């Protein structure tokens, strides 16, 4: 029943092992969070899974298929999509156009038809626009649809990225710090959104620093420190795990 399986993933940058032999899996409808002190390698791990970096070792198995090091656009076709910690929004396009971009796979591949504005192209465009407006309603951005994306607040842009990712109807959704920079109200909204998405059967892999949120919504937690997995389990057991506490306290001690 495993949808996404990470096996022994590792990568080095110039001699430094940023991630070393990390393994875990995610089932449909499950919310798995990856946590760890700053610099633990969480985003690097994400980048490897989502095809942005090429892993030095290990495998990524999606739906039984080895998709290691596959380019992001091929992963999208296979049902994996992600959002970005530092927001990769199409700044000069409107909020609506950003979301419609998520419909690309359903609309695309027809350059000649697009050049000639054939009825098929127009129909696909209408369907994409209708679907996009629905998604914007779901994330609470429907009134911002015609605004330029670059003019939105940080929290709104986070929700926009989720809407865009949802347009792909993914089977696996990777969320890179979805609540970062959001206030308490926004965090709770994103909370609900994530739970709703998981309830519809999507497997969710989450990187997040907001511990309350993580403990609240995760089914399963993986803890990284210095690029290695030091603990794994449900929220209750992880929060009491001495190694985890030491890793976070150690980070605090070093800082102060």
């Amino acid at each position: 029943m495993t949808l996404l399986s990470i096996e022994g993933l590792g990568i080095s940058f110039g001699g430094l092992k940023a991630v070393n032999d990390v393994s875990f899996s995610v089932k449909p409808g499950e919310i798995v969070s990856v946590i760890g002190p700053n610099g633990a390698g969480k985003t690097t791990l994400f980048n490897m899974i989502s095809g942005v970096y090429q892993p030095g070792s290990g495998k990524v198995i999606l739906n039984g298929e080895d998709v290691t090091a596959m380019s992001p656009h091929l992963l999208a076709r296979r049902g994996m999509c992600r959002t970005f910690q530092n927001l990769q929004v199409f700044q000069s396009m409107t909020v609506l156009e950003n979301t419609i971009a998520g419909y690309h796979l359903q609309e695309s591949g027809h350059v000649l038809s697009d050049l000639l504005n054939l009825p098929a192209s127009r129909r696909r465009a209408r369907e994409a626009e209708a679907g996009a407006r629905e998604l914007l309603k779901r994330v609470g951005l429907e009134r911002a649809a015609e605004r330029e994306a670059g003019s939105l607040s940080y929290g709104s842009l986070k929700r926009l990225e989720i809407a865009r990712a949802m347009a792909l109807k993914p089977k696996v959704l990777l969320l890179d710090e979805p609540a970062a920079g959001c206030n308490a109200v926004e965090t709770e909204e994103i909370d609900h959104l994530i739970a709703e998405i998981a309830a519809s059967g999507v497997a969710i892999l989450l990187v997040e620093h907001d511990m309350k949120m993580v403990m609240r919504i995760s089914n399963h937690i993986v803890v990284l420190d210095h690029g290695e997995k030091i603990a794994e389990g449900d929220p209750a057991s992880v929060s009491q795990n001495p190694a985890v506490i030491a890793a976070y306290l150690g980070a605090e001690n070093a800082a102060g």
Partner: protein
Amino acid sequence: MSELLQFLLSGVTVGAVYALVALGFTIIYNASDVVNFAQGEFVMLGGMITVAAYAAGAPLPLAALVAIAVTAALGVAMNKLAIEPARGAPVVSLVIITIGASIFIRGAAQLIFGKQIHTYPAFSGDDPIRILGATILPQSLWVIAGSVAVFIGLWLFFTRTLLGRAVLATSNNRLAAQLVGINTTFVMTLSFALSAGIGALAGVLVTPITMTSYDVGLAFALKGFAAAMLGGMGNPKGALVGGFLLGLLEGLTAGYISSQYKDAAAFIVILAVLFFLPQGLFGRKSTDRV
């Protein structure tokens, strides 16, 4: 055998010039992440201004010095007027700006100096020197020696002087350099002045051999860029090696394949490097952080 040597010697001569142009690209690229397409025009100006000053009656060494100084000042002006105002602009904009600047300089040169070909006497005469059955012009020796001297001088500057190390620090990490008190604006100005001056020197040295006119800059820019890329953009050692390698390649192409298409050698090098060895001989591979 002597034929091969002839091609090699002419190749080494142009290679020395390309190495200097490549060095100019490298210095500005290191200081500002900008590839300055006007680099070739600095070479042209070096030769042209020397011609003008010499024709006005100045002794050759003084004319050359004036040319280098004026071109260096122009480099600084270009930085202040065209590049600084566009800090942070997307790469497409910067490309268009530096190309626009180079065309502007070329247009100005056309108006001031006309379209004819100009030259001035070689520094130590025109009698070819015989080496193992091949000949080399004394001016070629000036070019090669001058090029090597510049590289050595710059190496000493960057590794032995405080100012030179400040320049290196700035190119490594501008913000960090500012935080430790380095005047990065001055470093940028210095980099452009240095780069333009080196380009001008190359022009000064090579004009008695190749002659000069208002439009020779483009070819130098492209070949210098090819050499810098071959060596690894941003690496001075690479600029030296890349320049001489490209020169040799061009000389051999002119000799054995076709002198009409010798200029194509540079473009083929560019394309080959871009496809097979994008970081050049001495460059580092980089990953984009997301």
